[in-house]
C-alpha cells in the first residue's frame, strides 16, 4: 500500500532572488544568488549536498538544455544533477524530484533549484509558444499566446455563470488589486504598486477580455530549496517545514479533444487538489488550509482555482472575492507575497518561489505581510493552458 510523501521530508533551507527585469544579471547570477541564500539559511555548505534537481523551462533563450548549467555554475563536484521541465510547474517538479530522492533513502540531503532568464528575448510576454508546444502544433494550432489561451477561459466563465463583461472584469480586477497590495509589502517582488479596481478595468486589453493588470509579470529570477529526511530535520534548524503532499496531474487530452470539458475550470487543478488533500489527510480545505500561493498567471486562473481547490464552491468564487476572503487580512489569504501577478513569473523558479513564501510565513518571518499562526499552506503551480496543462499542488506545514 503506497504511503505517500506526508511527513517524510522537510525543507531546511530556502533562497529566492528578487524577481524582476534583471537587465544586469545573467542566469548564472540568479542561480548563485538563490543558492547562496538557500545554503546559508540551511546552515550547510556546498560539500554537504550529494544530489540536485534543476528546473528551467524556456532553456533555449538562456541556459540551454541538461543539468550542466547548474552543475557548472555552482561547480558541483561531479554530482548527479537531474534537469526537469514541466512548463511553468518546473520548479515544483524539481522539489518533487529532490523530495522523492530523500524520501526513498537514497540521499540524506538534496537541492532543488529553478531559474528562468526571460528578459533576453527582445519583446514582451513569454517566448513564442511554437518553441514549447511541439512541431505539429505550428501546423494546426492558432498562433496562441498565454494571455489568449487563458482569456478563452474568462470568456467561458463569464458565459457559463452569466456575467456581463463588466461584471466579470470587475470580479477579476478585485483579484489583481489584492495581489498588487500584497506586492507592495514585499521587497523581492517585481511589481510594487497599488492599483485600483478602476485602473485595472480600464487598462489596455491584452487578450479580450483580459487587460494588462489581469496578466502576471514576466520576470527573471531563481529560487532554491534544501530538503532532508524528516527525522534529520531538527538537526539543522528548530523550525523546519514538513512536506505534507506533493501531487501533480497532467491533461489527458479530453479537455481539448472531447466536448465534455466546460473550459470554465481547470480539470487538472481539481484532480491534483483532490489527491493532495487525500495525501495530506485534509477533508475541509476551505477551513483547514491557512493560506495559499496559487498560480495566478492570469486573474481568471486564480478565480477558477479557488473553485478547483474547493476554497470556494463551484460558481461561487465571486462572492468570496468580493467579501475579501482571500485578502491578506481575510480568513484564507492567497498570494501573500503578491503572487505571480506582482512577485513575478520567472517560469521554472515560480513553483519554488511559492514554497519560499509559505516556508517564511510558517516560520513567522514574512515581515509586514505575516499571516497569524498559519498551520497548513498550499501551493498550486500550473503549466500550459486551460485545455492542455499540468498542475502541481504542494501542501507544507509545521
Amino acid at each position, binding site marked *: 500500500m503506497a504511503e505517500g510523501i506526508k511527513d517524510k521530508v522537510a525543507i531546511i533551507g530556502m533562497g529566492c532572488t528578487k524577481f524582476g527585469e534583471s537587465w544586469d544579471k545573467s542566469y548564472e547570477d540568479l542561480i548563485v544568488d538563490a543558492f547562496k541564500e538557500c545554503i546559508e539559511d540551511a546552515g550547510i555548505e556546498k560539500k554537504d549536498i550529494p544530489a540536485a534537481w534543476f528546473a528551467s523551462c524556456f532553456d533555449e533563450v538562456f541556459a540551454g538544455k541538461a543539468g550542466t548549467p547548474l552543475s557548472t555554475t555552482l561547480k558541483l563536484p561531479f554530482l548527479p544533477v537531474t534537469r526537469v521541465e514541466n512548463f511553468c510547474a518546473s520548479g515544483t517538479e524539481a522539489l518533487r524530484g529532490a523530495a522523492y530522492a530523500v524520501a526513498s533513502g537514497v540521499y540524506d540531503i538534496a537541492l532543488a533549484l529553478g531559474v528562468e532568464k526571460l528578459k533576453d*528575448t*527582445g*519583446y*514582451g*510576454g513569454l517566448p*513564442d509558444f*511554437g*518553441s514549447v508546444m511541439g*512541431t*505539429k502544433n*505550428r*501546423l*494546426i*494550432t*492558432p*498562433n*496562441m*499566446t498565454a*494571455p*489568449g*489561451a487563458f*482569456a*478563452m*477561459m474568462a*470568456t*467561458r466563465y463569464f*458565459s457559463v455563470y452569466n456575467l456581463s463583461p463588466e461584471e466579470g472584469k470587475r470580479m477579476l480586477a478585485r483579484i489583481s488589486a489584492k495581489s498588487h497590495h500584497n506586492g507592495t509589502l514585499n521587497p523581492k517582488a517585481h511589481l510594487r504598486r497599488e492599483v485600483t479596481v478602476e485602473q485595472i478595468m480600464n487598462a*489596455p*486589453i*491584452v*487578450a*479580450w*477580455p*483580459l487587460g494588462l493588470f489581469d496578466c502576471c509579470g514576466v520576470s527573471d529570477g531563481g529560487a532554491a530549496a534544501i530538503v532532508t529526511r524528516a527525522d534529520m530535520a531538527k538537526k539543522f534548524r528548530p523550525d523546519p517545514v514538513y512536506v505534507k503532499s506533493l501531487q501533480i496531474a497532467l491533461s*489527458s*487530452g*479530453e479537455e*481539448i*479533444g*472531447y*466536448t*465534455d470539458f466546460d*473550459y470554465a475550470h481547470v480539470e487538472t487543478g481539481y484532480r491534483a487538489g483532490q489527491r493532495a488533500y487525500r495525501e495530506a489527510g485534509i477533508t475541509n480545505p476551505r477551513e483547514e488550509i491557512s493560506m495559499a500561493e496559487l498560480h495566478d498567471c492570469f486573474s481568471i486562473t486564480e478565480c477558477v482555482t479557488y473553485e478547483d481547490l474547493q476554497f470556494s464552491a463551484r460558481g461561487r468564487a465571486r462572492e468570496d472575492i468580493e467579501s475579501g476572503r482571500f485578502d491578506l487580512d481575510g480568513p484564507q489569504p492567497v498570494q501573500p507575497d503578491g503572487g505571480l501577478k506582482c512577485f513575478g513569473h520567472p517560469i521554472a523558479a515560480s513553483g519554488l518561489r511559492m514554497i519560499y513564501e509559505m516556508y517564511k510565513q510558517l516560520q513567522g518571518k514574512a515581515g509586514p505581510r505575516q499571516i497569524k499562526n498559519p498551520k497548513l499552506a498550499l501551493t498550486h503551480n500550473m503549466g500550459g493552458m486551460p*485545455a492542455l496543462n499540468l498542475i502541481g499542488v504542494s501542501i507544507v506545514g509545521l
Partner: protein
Amino acid sequence: MVGITSYGAYIPRYRINRNTIYSAMGWLNPATLMPGEKAVANCDEDNISMAVAASLDCLNGLEREKIEGLYLATTTSPYRERQAAGIVATALDLRPEIRTADFTDSIKAGTTALLAACDAIKGGSAKRVIACAADSRLGKAGSAQEEIYGDGAAALLLGDSGVIATLEGSYSVSYDFTDHWRGEEDKFDRTWEDRWIRDVGYTKFIPEAISGLLKKYELSIKDFAKVVYPALYVREHAAIGKGLGADPGQIQQQMLATVGDSGVASPLMMLVAALEDAKPGDKILLASYGNGSDAMFFQVTQEIDKVRDRRGIKGHLALKRELTSYEKYAAFRGTIPIEKGIRGDEIAFTQLSNLWRERRVVLALYGSKCKRCGTPQYPPQRICVRPDCGAIDEMEDYRFSDKKGHLFTYTGDSLAFSTSPPAIYGMIDFEGGGRYNFDLTDCDLDSIKVGMPVEMSFRRKYADPARGIYGYFWKAVPVQA
C-alpha cells in the same frame, strides 16, 4: 455529351472602395481614378485558398472520390515551383490517383484549363475533372493596376453525365502579345502603353476568336443568350459586343465595379454568373483574353435546375465587408512592410517531411472517429479521447472540413503577431462531435459571440518568405445570418 456539370465561385469578403485607394495614392497619378469597389483577399487568402473555396462551392454535396483530375489556372502562385493544383487537390480531399496541373503565365489560362479538362473527358482519359481559376494580382502603389485588379476565383466541374451546359465547340487564337509581363525577379507586372494594349490587343483578339468560332460553327451572335468575355476597360467591353452585333442585353455584365479584373478567374467567374441566370436551351458564348483568346460555346440543358444551391457569384457578392483603410489593404498585400516585431519575425523551419506525413490532417482537416463509441476527434488519435471509452486502434478516418460547428469560446489576442490584429481564435465544437482550437477569420471581435455558428475555410496560416514557404490550414468563419 461533355460539358459543365457543376459550378462554384469565390469572392473574398473584403471590398475596398476605389475612392479609398485614390484618396491615398491618387496624388501620384491622377488619371487612375475608377468608379466602384474591388474585392480584396484577406491577409490569409491567396490564389490557392480562393481556388479551394470556389471548388468547395462547386463540389457542394457531390462525391469527391469520383473526381479524376484538377486543373488550376493562376498567374499568382506563391510558388514558382510546387504545384498549386496539388495543394488544392489535397485540401479538397480528392484521391491521389488523379491528374493535376497548373495552367499559368497568361490570364487566358482559365479557359485553356477548361478546354484541356473537356478534351481529357472527350478523349476518354477521365470522366470528371475540375477546372478552377484564381488570381490575386498585385499593383504597385499608385498604379492603374492597383485600382483595377481584384481578387476572386471560379471552379467548374466537367464531365459527361449530368451535364448542365454542354461544350459545343471552341476556337482559339494565340499571339506573343506582350502587353504585360513579369521577369524572373519581378514582383509586379511591367506593362506597355495602355492605348496599344486596348487598341491592338484587347479589342482585337476577343472579336477575332468569337468571329472565328461563329464562322467555324456557322452561328450568328444573335443565337446566344449570353456572350461572356472579361473586361479590362468598361467602354471597350461594351464596344466589343456592339461591334460583334450583340444587343446590350446579350452581353454578360462585367464586374469591374464590384470585383475588379480578377485575371485568369475573370472569364470563368463571369461564366458562373451567366450560368446562375441561364435557362435550359440557352446558348452561352465564352471568350477569354491574354496572349490571344480562347472562345467556347455552351448549350444549357434541363439539368441546370439541379445546380441552384451554389453560393456562386451572387451569394459571394452579397457577403461583404468594407475595408476602409488603404494602409490596411497595402499591408494585407505586402506592398508596404509592416512592423512585426521580433515575435512576428520568429518563424521556425516548416518540417516538410512532417507536413507530408500529416498532409490529410493539415490540408484536408482529417481527424478520426472511434468505431466503438462513435466520437469524432481532431487531430486523429489512436487511443479514443472519450474518457469512458479509451478504445485502442479502433479508429476510422473522419473529415471535419465540411462539418459545421459552433464557437465554444474565443479571444481577440493583441499580443500574438497578426497582420490583422487582434488575432481572433477560439475553440470550435463540431456538429456531430469533435473539438479543437482554430483561428477565426473574416470577422471582427465585436461581432462574435459564444455559441455562434461557424464553417471551415482553407486559409494561409503563416508565411515564411525568407525560406519561400507558405503554410495552409483551416480557419473558422462565422456564418452570417
